[in-house]
């Protein structure tokens, strides 16, 4: 275990302590204890910045399950460090914010912080693991802890619904991803990402390339809320706002982005990878931004905007994968998309984090998040309004904020696509920039709605539950102010990120593209001259403004009034159908009747044995080596058959017992004929006692009746029982015939030779039972003892009340 390992699992360790701190130190808000950890982690991860900036990587390895090739390897390169900094950095701010957001008197803080720390540790594990199985384990922990956090207010029905939904969708994706990882293992023989990248030729030429890719993308798309799996994210907004700010904008939903970026060296360069990711990303972008316009709840607008922004980053990663096709790192034509993706990832975390926090402040101070009830808050909450304005302007892509820079880069990347001349972009490539541009108009529109409907217009105190609306306490404002300042700083001086974070991250997403010793050179600047991208931005602002000004006209339309996503209906009906279907299926087979269960068992015994014997051609009859049949044997056998067959037809209980007893004594007789005197003796004794026991019990039981069952049932019973009988006969004959053909020799000779020598007994069967296998016999006596206790207690025990046995 190295320092890096301890750092990764430290949130889990702290999570163990939190309940005790909550219980014994009630005076101090539990959040203060938690706050230290992400801060320390953030500083710790900052210390790796010089390493990755030099193009170096850090690898720390601890074996876990070496026999399966699973090793707890942690790996820091530009990409994982970027995510680790986001997780710990935003984590610090969110914990600080939550201290003021969640009351220490009313909330179950121990639960909240345990879940949050679980999530933080899992997320660090996802981005730092080099081993795919370890990554998968952490991935699923993020799904579980996310569901726990969404259902934090578990008494609300919507919370548990949202938690369930996110869990089902992301775990479904996680399982597909595990399948994809296994396929990668089949192709390359390793779970290590680095080694897979080193053997990428094996993957590219394999016939499993496409299945593995699709399965892994399912995991990424469900986690990152890509169309059509985005439906869980708006419902996840039932979580407390700090959770939404942390998980559902900055970190967890970006795990899918991380996975796609991590897998780019493996799958990048393929036309399927390019088109699937680009189109799914752009569809998500446009679907999310249009849906966001229709929402009336602050957090719902932000949720759909997150969906659309994630789609944007995803599409950039798809477009950027062509760098592998051209294998040319020097040409900005191919690498701009990856640059834009990394840059926007950072920007989105800053402005979306601050926006969620301000939305939480508005909810906290006014008691509502409905934009129809809000308005005129600018004068009451000036700081919140300013921070929101900065965040929204960045999201809408306005200068001089960081969102403008990444939006311009996004346009550049999309326009570049039309010049690639591969993957049939010459016919379809134009779709990409057009979709991107349309989606940006809607992005501008919902940003405008969000700001102007909340902060300007008429203040409507009569619609609010809270009487005195005022600015939030300063502690709650610190985090959004810090994030808002970062929006401005990154907007004005983008190149402080270029060398430290963006270049190493690009090198990690696109390894092996550059010549050894070369590095990506990134220089982001505001003014490009009057190029197409600038005109696109101007067009977005102009058309977006027109839409906003004419809002009164189209806000009456059915489009604006229906908030529900149609994919929710698909999910709901699918979910209900699954439950109903499984109930029908279970009820159909689990009838509670012994007969049915026996029927299933017997049928499957016959089918399985029959198939196996047929498959391996094991039916055989050997008539050579039979022992002769004595005449009296015929009589015994026929008598036995008659007495056995008679039993089902007898309706008198005493007769039934006597006939069964006759069968038992005939079996004893057979044992004598078969030269087994001990068995005959035992059988005689047992049969006698059994008959007496039957007599005793049957005295209390009702008379046997003629069975009243349907003829069809009777026929099925008959067929199944005859099938079992025939099968047993065949097995018996075949086993006898083939038994002499095996290479195994009987071990009987050992007992015959040694029973006198070693155990001093002449009766070999007895010696086996009491000496050679003495322990077995002792345990058998134990079994009998247990049965005896059961018998006695069932006769004697009388339970009180209405309980039954």
């Amino acid at each position: 275990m190295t320092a890096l390992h301890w750092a990764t699992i430290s949130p889990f360790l702290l999570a163990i302590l939190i309940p005790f701190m909550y219980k014994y130190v009630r005076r101090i808000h539990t959040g203060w204890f938690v706050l230290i950890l992400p801060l320390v982690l953030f500083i710790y991860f900052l210390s790796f910045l010089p390493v990755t900036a030099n193009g170096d990587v850090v690898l720390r390895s601890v074996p876990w399950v070496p026999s399966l090739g699973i090793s707890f390897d942690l790996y820091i390169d530009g990409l994982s460090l970027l995510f680790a900094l986001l997780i710990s950095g935003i984590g610090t701010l969110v914990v600080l914010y939550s201290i003021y957001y969640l009351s220490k008197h009313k909330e179950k803080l121990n639960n909240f912080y345990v879940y949050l720390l679980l999530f933080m540790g899992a997320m660090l594990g996802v981005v730092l693991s080099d081993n795919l199985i370890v990554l998968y384990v952490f991935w699923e922990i993020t799904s579980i802890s996310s569901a726990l956090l969404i259902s934090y207010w578990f008494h609300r029905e919507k919370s548990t619904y949202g938690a369930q939904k996110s869990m089902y969708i992301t775990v479904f994706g996680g399982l597909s991803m595990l399948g994809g990882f296994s396929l990668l293992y089949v192709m390359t023989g390793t779970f290590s990402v680095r080694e897979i990248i080193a053997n990428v030729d094996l993957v590219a030429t394999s016939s499993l390339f496409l299945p593995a890719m699709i399965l892994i993308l399912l995991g990424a798309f469900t986690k990152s809320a890509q169309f059509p799996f985005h439906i869980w994210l708006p419902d996840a907004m039932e979580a407390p706002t700090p959770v939404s700010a942390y998980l559902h904008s900055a970190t967890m939903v970006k795990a899918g982005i991380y996975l796609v970026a991590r897998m780019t060296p493996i799958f990048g360069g393929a036309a399927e990878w390019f088109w699937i990711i680009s189109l799914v990303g752009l569809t998500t972008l446009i679907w999310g931004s249009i849906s966001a316009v229709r929402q009336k709840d602050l957090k719902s607008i932000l949720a759909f905007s997150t969906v659309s922004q994630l789609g944007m980053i995803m599409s950039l990663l798809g477009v950027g994968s062509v760098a592998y096709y051209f294998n040319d790192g020097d040409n900005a034509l191919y690498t701009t998309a990856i640059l834009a993706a990394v840059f926007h990832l950072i920007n989105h975390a800053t402005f979306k984090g601050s926006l969620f926090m301000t939305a939480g402040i508005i909810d906290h101070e006014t008691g509502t998040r409905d934009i129809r009830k809000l308005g005129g808050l600018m004068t009451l909450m000036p700081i919140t309004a300013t921070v929101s304005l900065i965040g929204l302007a960045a999201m809408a892509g306005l200068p001089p904020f960081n969102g403008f820079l990444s939006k311009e880069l996004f346009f550049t990347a999309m326009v570049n696509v039309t010049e690639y001349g591969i993957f049939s972009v010459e016919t379809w490539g134009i779709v990409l920039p057009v979709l991107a541009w349309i989606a940006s108009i809607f992005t501008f529109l919902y940003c405008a709605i969000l700001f102007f409907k909340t902060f300007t217009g008429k203040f409507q105190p009569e619609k609010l539950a809270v009487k005195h609306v005022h600015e939030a306490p300063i502690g709650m404002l610190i985090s959004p102010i810090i994030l808002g300042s970062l929006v401005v700083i990154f907007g004005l001086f983008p190149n402080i990120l270029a060398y430290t974070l963006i270049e190493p991250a690009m090198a990690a997403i696109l390894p092996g593209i550059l010549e050894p010793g070369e590095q990506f050179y990134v220089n982001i600047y505001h003014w490009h001259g009057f190029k197409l991208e600038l005109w696109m931005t101007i067009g977005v602002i102009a058309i977006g403004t027109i839409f906003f000004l004419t809002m009164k006209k189209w806000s009456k339309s059915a489009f604006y009034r229906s908030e529900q996503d149609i994919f929710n209906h698909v999910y709901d009906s699918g979910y209900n159908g699954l439950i109903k279907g499984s109930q029908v299926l279970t009820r159909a087979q689990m009838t509670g009747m012994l007969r049915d269960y026996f029927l299933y068992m017997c049928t499957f015994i016959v089918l399985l044995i029959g198939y196996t014997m047929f498959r391996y051609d094991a039916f055989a009859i050997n008539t050579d080596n039979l022992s002769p049949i004595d005449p009296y044997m015929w009589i015994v056998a026929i008598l036995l058959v008659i007495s056995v067959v008679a039993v089902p037809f007898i309706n008198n209980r005493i007769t039934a017992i006597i006939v069964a007893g006759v069968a038992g004594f005939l079996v004893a007789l057979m044992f004598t004929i078969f030269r087994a005197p001990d068995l005959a003796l035992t059988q005689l004794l047992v049969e006698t006692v059994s008959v007496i026991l039957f007599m005793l019990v049957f005295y209390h039981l009702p008379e046997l009746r003629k069975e009243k069952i349907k003829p069809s049932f009777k026929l099925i019973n008959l067929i199944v029982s005859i099938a079992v009988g025939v099968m047993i006969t065949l097995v018996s004959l075949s086993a006898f015939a083939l038994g002499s053909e095996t290479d195994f020799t009987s071990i009987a000779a050992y007992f015959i030779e040694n029973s006198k020598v070693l155990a001093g007994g002449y009766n070999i069967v007895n010696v086996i039972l009491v000496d050679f296998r003495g322990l077995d016999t002792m345990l058998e006596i134990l079994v009998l003892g247990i049965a005896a206790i059961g018998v006695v207690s069932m006769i004697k025990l009388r339970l009180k009340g209405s309980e039954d046995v």
Partner: protein
Amino acid sequence: MEVLMSIVIGIIFTVSVYLFLSRSIIRVILGTLLLSHGVHLLLITMSELQRGAPPLLNLDADAYTDPLPQALVLTAIVIAFGVTSFLLVMAYRTYKEHKTDDLEELRGSADE
């Protein structure tokens, strides 16, 4: 002899499975009783019948019957007795509590 025994065993299995599938709890118990007979005979038959003397060394025979299956069957007989008596008492108690020996009436509700 082995072929004859295989057929007899098959018939015993047929009857006991048929008894298993009936509605009366008593018939099910009779089924288990007969089934154990079938299994014991099957085990003995598999070891080749009537080759050599009974496995008693003081007979001084040239060859003895395989003693191992006999030891197995002896254990099985005793265990089968334990099972049968347990089932019998359980049937008795079930009848006392529920006033029926009909398995169809004894089954739980559909939602269980």
